[in-house]
């Protein structure tokens, strides 16, 4: 029977929906091992986040509310999560593999003397998991040998947990965040009316073929109410910000529809989108590797084809 602790992610008192993938993974792990899971919410003024999370079948929702925790810092958050995990006797600590999850969990593992499995896609047992390596070209089975286990959860492998009704008890935990040596300076938020890349039902991505002109990609994304992504080549060229990058070294997405425009389809890009339900490729090079795995391929110049496609979608009355 494994005691599981799920670390919730919030930003300035707003729940990050990615949290619900870790809850799904915790359910799967609890079922496999006959254990149960608690959810830990930490931050400043996080009462509402905690209330929301009482409806997800946790044995309890632990709340560490402290003004010092207003801004995420790996040092203070790492200490609090590890202290709570110890106090609760947690054997498995889970969090979704967002940039915060990736930044934080190894520090928690170090404090707990735990081995950590990154980006798990399947729970095989309390200490055994499947996880992708080599840009997703290899699926490894891994076994953690330490008494306590830490794992980050690949969001696309676990659909967000549904609320189950019922109310988990809330419990305030005292948390000493210590004195971090790092200071938060600023957060420059990417402003966008489009849905988030990892949550969107449709994603439209542009690559080298755009030659830096992302207007067609924007228009297509807007016509479909889709999120906008990019290949590493487009990010490397400085055409779009890095948080739009889909791939091994960027975000991993699995929408219902992924439209790759002017993207050749390098291994590292496939790693970020190959679990999409339907993949459409638009590229003027008929030999581009993107066509080898796309469900629908259209050979053509994106600057001609995409505006036509936008019109056609509008005519068909689909999208936003």
């Amino acid at each position, binding site marked *: 029977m494994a005691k599981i602790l799920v670390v919730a992610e919030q930003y300035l008192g707003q729940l990050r929906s990615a949290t619900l993938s870790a809850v799904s993974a915790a359910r799967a792990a609890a079922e496999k091992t006959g254990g149960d899971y608690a959810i830990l919410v930490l931050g400043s003024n996080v009462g509402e986040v905690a209330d929301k999370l009482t409806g997800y079948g946790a044995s309890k929702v632990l709340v560490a509310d402290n003004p010092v925790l207003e801004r995420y810092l790996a*040092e203070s958050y790492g200490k609090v999560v590890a202290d709570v995990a110890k106090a609760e006797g947690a054997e498995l600590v889970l969090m979704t593999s967002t940039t915060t999850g990736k930044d934080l969990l190894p520090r928690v593992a170090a404090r707990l003397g735990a081995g950590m499995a990154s980006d798990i896609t399947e729970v095989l047992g309390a200490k055994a998991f499947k996880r992708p390596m080599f840009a997703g070209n290899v699926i490894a089975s891994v076994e953690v040998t330490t008494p306590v286990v830490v794992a980050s959860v690949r969001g696309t492998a676990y659909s967000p947990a549904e609320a189950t009704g019922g109310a988990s008890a809330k419990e305030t935990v005292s948390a000493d965040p210590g004195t971090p040596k790092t200071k938060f300076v600023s957060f420059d938020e990417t402003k966008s009316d489009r849905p988030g890349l990892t949550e969107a039902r449709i994603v439209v991505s542009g690559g080298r073929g755009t030659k830096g002109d992302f207007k067609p990609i924007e228009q297509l994304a807007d016509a479909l109410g889709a999120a906008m992504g990019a290949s590493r080549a487009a990010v490397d060229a400085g055409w779009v910000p890095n948080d739009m990058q889909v791939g091994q070294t960027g975000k991993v997405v699995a929408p219902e529809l992924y439209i790759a425009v002017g993207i050749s389809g390098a291994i590292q890009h496939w790693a970020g989108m190959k679990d999409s339900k339907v993949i459409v490729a638009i590229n003027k090079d008929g030999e581009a590797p993107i066509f080898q795995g796309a469900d629908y391929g259209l*050979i053509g110049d994106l600057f001609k084809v995409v505006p036509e496609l936008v019109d056609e979608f509008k005519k068909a009355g689909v999208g936003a």
Partner: protein
Amino acid sequence: MKILVTAKRLMDPETKIKLKKDNSGVDLEGVKFVVNPFDENAIEEALRLKEKHGGEVVVVSIGKPEVVEQIRTGLAMGGDRGIHVNADGEIDSDAVARILAKLVEEEKPDLVLMGKQAVDDDSSQAGQLLAEYLGWGQACFASKVEVNGTTATVTREVDGGLETLELQLPALVTADLRLNEPRYASLPGIMKAKKKEVKEVTPASLGVDVAPKVKVTGVTVPPARSAGKKVESVQELVQMLKTEAKVL
């Protein structure tokens, strides 16, 4: 300032993957090896900081004697000297972090720069583990690093935007791809690198037990997506998405 950087040896990411016959791991026989691309960004940044502030860049790699090749690459780019931690077999992220922690105790660098992840196991753990073992601050996924005396101001690529942190030195920074464009080693650089000092140590000489906390017990190749249809027009594409794929 003194900077410690890592140069992990790994299979060229463009290589087609082959598994070992017993599915215990990836077959690395006869493949080409390179420096982890993100470590190249880290090395480049270390060199730029040295060019600006003076100091020394020490290049570290862990593994069999072959990893000295990757150390030499870092030295050819401009690193001053190397440390080879001679170790055989699987070394997991936690062992890497504990080895590096020992080297930091000896070398006392002001900054440790590493890649944000190694593109073979894709774990993205060693830097953060190291920072915790040392009790240091960290800034992972860095796209900008500025050192001002005893602090460093680092911009990080995070979900939803860019975060800026002020780190007290010594500290740990991991490099994201937009941090810089790594330089190529020049021919004179390569010649000079051959004469630069590379010290050899072992996990045992550092007092580090490398028994893995995470073991790979088997590997498989996921089923490949097969090529679908080529459509001739945007009209046909929209029709297919509506009636066949039913995703609209």
